[in-house]
């Protein structure tokens, strides 16, 4: 019964996501596309942080690696649909290379190691103008139109609404893949690492290998999202891949519910959409200054995480516990 209800809710939400663009303007459709891609990147971080218990502040760097990799591959004449798996693979490989030394340390030490990596990637993209266009943006090397939007089976996805449906399809695909992964022995090993690493080790679960794998798959998912982010925004510079964006992705995971399957989807919606919604509504209610929305958003997050540190998806558990 519960499963049937869940499936019905999922179908209803998916139907709403399919219908919604018909009633939205271009910016609303753009925000929904952005949500789809950030939810994928946040799912990757949820795998690393929520399931394998490893703190990472480098998720935006992997998003950037995916975006720049696909853009540079397309510029080199590689078809977009070949570029996407290659960009994902590049992010996965960089995740492996970073994880190998970085995962020797844990908790806040790992957070600082990954933070350092994010800054390094940001600076590398900004300073290597000849390759990336630096702070002038990818348009410097790809032409003023930037990264072109792809076609699929001869059908152009140039219109925002068409590209949104592609982003939504990629979110569904990633969600399905992560669902399958978490139900595989690998997924159970990830959860075992998070729940009780000492016990996991004494059962011969190779902690180092599984942690590294979770980290690299998380990086690969961010790279995958980045490969679609590039044609979504078309013109981009390093700024969306800095430390602030990594913190934003972390907030999405934590606010939604770290270690909960739908946490990244809900967290990404809240972190991306709520400030825009507040920005549109609050000035009418509260008058100037226009920055009220930041204040209210910050307070809302603070109250939520103080009252329910497990995030939005932990609220029903908390209410149930209180009722008992």
């Amino acid at each position, binding site marked *: 019964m519960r499963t049937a209800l869940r499936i019905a809710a999922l179908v209803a939400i998916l139907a709403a996501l399919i219908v919604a663009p018909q009633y939205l303007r271009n910016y609303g459709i753009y925000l929904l596309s952005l949500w789809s891609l950030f939810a994928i990147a946040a799912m990757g971080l949820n795998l690393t942080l929520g399931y394998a218990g490893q703190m990472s502040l480098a998720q935006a760097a992997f998003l950037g690696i995916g975006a720049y990799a696909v853009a540079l591959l397309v510029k080199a004449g590689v078809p977009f649909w070949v570029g996407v798996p290659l960009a994902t693979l590049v992010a996965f490989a960089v995740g492996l290379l970073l994880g190998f030394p970085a995962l020797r340390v844990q908790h806040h030490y790992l957070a600082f190691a990954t933070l350092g990596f994010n800054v390094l990637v940001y600076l590398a993209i900004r300073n290597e103008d000849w390759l990336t266009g630096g702070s002038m943006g990818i348009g410097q090397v790809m032409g003023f139109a930037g990264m072109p939007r792809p076609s699929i089976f001869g059908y152009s996805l140039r219109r925002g609404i068409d590209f949104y449906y592609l982003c939504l399809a990629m979110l569904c695909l990633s969600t399905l893949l992560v669902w399958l992964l978490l139900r595989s022995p690998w997924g159970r*090993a990830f*959860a*075992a690492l*998070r*729940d009780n690493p000492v*016990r996991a080790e*004494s*059962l011969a679960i190779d902690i180092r290998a599984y942690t590294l794998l979770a980290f690299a798959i998380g990086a690969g998912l961010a790279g995958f999202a980045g490969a679609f982010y590039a044609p979504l925004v078309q013109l981009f510079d390093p700024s969306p891949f800095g430390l602030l964006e990594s913190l934003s992705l972390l907030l999405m995971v934590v606010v939604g519910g770290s270690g909960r399957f739908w946490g990244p989807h809900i967290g990404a919606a809240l972190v991306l959409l709520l400030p825009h919604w507040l920005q549109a509504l609050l000035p009418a209610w509260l008058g100037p200054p226009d920055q009220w929305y930041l204040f209210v958003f910050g307070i809302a997050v603070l109250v939520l995480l103080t009252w329910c540190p497990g995030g939005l998806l932990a609220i029903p558990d908390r209410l149930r516990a209180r009722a008992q």
Partner: protein
Amino acid sequence: MAPETSGAAVRLDGIVAGYGQITILNGLSFTAPAAKITTLIGANGAGKSTVFKTIFGIVRPRAGSVTIGGEAVTGFPARELLARGIVYVPQGRNLFPTLSVRHNLELGGITLGSRALIAQRMEAVFARFPRIAERAEQQASALSGGEQKQLEIGRALLLEPKVVLIDEPSIGLAPKVVADVFALLRGLADTGVTTLMVEQNVRSALAVSDHAVALEGGRVAIEGPAGEMLANPRIKSLFLGGHMEQTG
């Protein structure tokens, strides 16, 4: 269904081990006989749990050797020891609380490398613990304390072990459940499983054991048949509610 195994004696010889600069075991030597229950007793800090961690390769000894069934296994990693049928059930709650009972059991068989074999062994565990079988699809955190201990032991039995190292099995359990756990361990030893147990509940533990080793300052203070230890005045005074000997 009891696993058909032939036990293996566990021998520690001159073990020196500890954590960082602190030495806990100071040249510890004893033998736990094959297919018997050996209980380690001692005050807090005597090194009982460190003995298990050293046998299981979690703490690397600075000197000395561990031999199981005649084979030197000093410092072997968990995977190698599990492959030889040596399992360790640490103190406290050792489950993965967010995973189901079935998935907790599956992880216990990770070294078996065959899904079919894991499924077959799991059925044997379910037959032994019907209460666990009933709750196979529930989260491990939803089980009672006694059921969680059964699941931990069931997970260890999945490998059909030759040697079981079990640390404080009675901790946090109701007396009736403790009696069931001890009876289960007795049954295992009777089918040939060498069992080493650390237990604070000394009287009950010795009553079910064949052999006992009392540790003091990381060395063997007294060793012998469990029945004799129960009658030993020094053991009585130290661990069975008598008065502590005044020293110094």
